């Protein structure tokens, strides 16, 4: 077991380096560079000042030297300074945006699983009834409606027409002077629409998945046996069937962990939520290499970590894997 763990952990390093090498190459292949974005079409910029800017950012060095420098900084956990004019530490930029993105994603994820699982079970148990069809229509509606459009409609209705909810942002003006409890309520009101709409949009996948695994389990012999020996229907479903049907869903939960630090650009833009999606998008559009690389490395790291954890769990549950014979 220890041997297997060690092997898996050691494997991470070449993987991570491979990922950074590819992303570094790809982002540099995109036409234009940071200096370009700041100086293009500006009459006040001479070739000399452009060269000066390039030198300042180290863009005058050959690509492999730039990569080597970046990697050696990374080895010391230094993501470098952003190429945007603010020239701030990439870590600072990421750290100030991660909390809101993670909280939003965690809440949405909990809601998604909390709603999709019961919905899926309900649909499976009442298979082919009006209820099942109604649920299908509902979740696919959420899946099919463009979220930005729904978001705008809801903002208009609840924000402008009814004035029940704030439209955008995560704080009201002057909320910093409110008592703590009122401040939380203020944030909750701001997050209600984004979370509700994000959840509505993602119900379909998980609930349909839940429905089909549940149906599969329900058609198995041991369920028939359970029913034959007179177990109550509730117990059949929630005790015998559900446990087995949930297993693959839990794997899905594992997969969604790396997604927690990613934000949706469109969503964050519409609701003016200062999250990771916007930061990354702006980074790419302005060719802010250190920022883009920083976010990608963290994302890649988390993905690898997630996979590793999943593998460990499998290894724990399945002896064939940890003995390397699977």
């Amino acid at each position, binding site marked *: 077991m220890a041997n297997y763990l060690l092997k898996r952990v050691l494997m991470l390093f070449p993987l991570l380096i491979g990922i950074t090498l590819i992303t570094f190459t790809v982002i540099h292949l*995109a*036409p*234009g560079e940071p200096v*370009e*974005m*700041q*100086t*293009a*079409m*500006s*009459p*006040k*910029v*001479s*070739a000399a*000042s*452009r060269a*000066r*800017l390039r030198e*300042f*950012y180290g863009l005058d060095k050959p690509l492999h030297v730039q990569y080597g420098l970046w990697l050696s900084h990374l080895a010391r956990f230094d993501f470098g300074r952003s190429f*945007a*004019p*603010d*020239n*701030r530490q990439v870590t600072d*930029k990421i750290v*100030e*945006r991660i909390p809101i993105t993670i909280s939003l994603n965690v809440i949405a994820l909990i809601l998604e699983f909390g709603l999709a699982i019961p919905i899926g079970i309900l649909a499976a148990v009442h298979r082919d009834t009006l209820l099942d069809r109604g649920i299908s229509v509902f979740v696919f509606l959420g899946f099919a409606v463009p979220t930005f459009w729904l978001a*705008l409609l809801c*903002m*208009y209705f609840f*924000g*402008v027409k009814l*004035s029940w909810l*704030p*439209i*955008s*942002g*995560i*704080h009201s*003006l*002057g909320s910093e002077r409110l008592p703590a409890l009122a401040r939380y309520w203020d944030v909750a009101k701001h997050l209600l629409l984004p979370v509700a709409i994000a959840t509505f949009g993602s119900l379909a996948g998980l609930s349909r998945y839940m429905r089909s695994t549940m149906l599969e389990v329900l058609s198995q012999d041991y369920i028939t046996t359970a029913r034959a020996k007179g177990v109550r229907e509730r117990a059949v479903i929630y005790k015998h069937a559900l446990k087995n049907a949930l297993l693959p869903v839990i794997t899905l939960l594992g997969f969604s962990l790396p997604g927690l630090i990613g934000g949706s650009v469109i969503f*964050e*833009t*519409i*609701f*003016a*939520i*200062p*999250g990771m999606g*916007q*930061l990354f998008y702006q980074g790419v*559009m302005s*060719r802010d290499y250190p920022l883009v690389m920083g976010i990608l490395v963290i994302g890649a790291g988390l993905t690898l970590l997630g996979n590793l954890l999943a593998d460990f769990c499998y290894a724990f549950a399945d002896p064939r894997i940890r003995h390397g014979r699977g």
Partner: protein
Amino acid sequence: MKLRRRLALLCLAAALAGCAEEAPRQKPRGQGGAPAYGDALVTGSIGEPSTLIPLLASDSASFDIAGLVYNGLVRYDKNLNLEGDLAKSWEVSPDGLDITFHLRRGVKWHDGHEFTSRDVLYTYRVTVDPKTPTAYSEDFKQVQSAQAVDAYTFRVRYAKPFAPALASWGMFMLPAHLLEGKEVTKSPLARHPVGTGPYVFKEWIPGQKLTLAANPDYYEGAPYLARYVYRIIPDASTMYMELKAGGVDMMGLSPVQYQRQTNTPEFLARFNKYRYPASAYTYLGYNLQLPLFQDRRVRQAITCAINKEEIVQGVLLGMGKVAHGPYKPGTWAYKEVVPDPGYDPARAAALLKEAGFVMGKDGILAKDGKPLSFTIMTNQGNDQRAKCVQIIQRRLKKVGIDVKVRVMEWSSFLTNFIDKGKFDAVLLGWTISQDPDQYDIWHSSKTEPKELNFIHFKNPEMDRLLVEGRGTFDVEKRRACYYKIQDILAVEQPYTFLYVPDALPAVSSRFRGIEPAPAGIMHNLIKWYVPKQEQTRD
């Protein structure tokens, strides 16, 4: 598209810049009420400022804030004439080489230090320092020597008379006592600026908002509005809803919003709408290195074939003016009547025939068996430009010119096509600078890659006039040069100038004291006020 303005301080004004003859269409509602201190102005911005050290910034959001926190030595007044700001007055020596600024006494930085010539000298030095990654050193390269004569006198000497020089001192002054001897790129002032301006920086919540507070010691008197809040709202439709819900007090409307969505009695009671020409124009530029466009008659013919009025109506819903040249209507360099061909499809056909094109069976003109066909490129994400290209495409088709359209992501567009000269024609726009010097855009020496005369316009008479126009401080002589330049452009048609759009701001009607002028509405922000009984934000 950003043509860097002569004056950083005007970035704010230019965003809402306007023209005297075009007073607001709607009469301001909500008149009356005595001036009172208090309340806050909340505005929205699509982008977040990058750095509040203006020397290092290149985005308009940064200048929106910097314009309220800092001052320059000079600035443009509401009629777009230069006036003293931190300099009470200045003298230009008779030979035009020396400028002496007499600084205002008793102006305080927000931390209480006094503003002196030491700050001016520092700002100049850090700007031209080769280690400073700034885009604004070019104007100051012409300076031969700079000297702080005494604490309140600052003198610069130029190698040759350079008219845009004076305006260049509108650059925002930085506090020497906080920056001298330190690396300006790593200074905390980038996130927490200290200036001399009417508003004091309070806080910046990244991605959400910036807050400024009135400076009680401002040299022109404390502003009435106690706070200025700059919210970052990246989506334009969201911002419009925030405006209607009262989350922001002011925003620039789109033509559709101005014309079709805001004429309800409810909206008009709550907001005042303003309208005046923006400091920008949109044009169709031709690659003059291609044989096709080297023939002046072809360029003239295209201009004749395009109905600019139709574009203004179709794309801007009438919220703009047809352009004939690169200056803003109503400014001193603008020439009203130029020998521009105008909309005349018959003349277009005649010109093309004269140039040797014959109508083919497919309805496309051709010369020596080659069809008259080219591609217009424009950048992605600008809906008005995309519509404009389609209208042009249809009009040119009518006279027998086949136009293809290509829309590209901005940075690929510049790197792969503009810089390499690989384009036929482009539909783009320029911001119009306050100073009429356009050497960088039209002079034949500015045709290297990444320089702005990317269409390769070369005209000896034009070159001479451009040099003459920037080499004298005499406004009448300069005007004569720029009038001739506009005549040349009208005849040569290196660009087909299309339109100057209108700026269409809407401001909550509780704000009083707004005075639309050629410089827009923001020029007298410190005089805006909300009467006591109408104040809503504490």
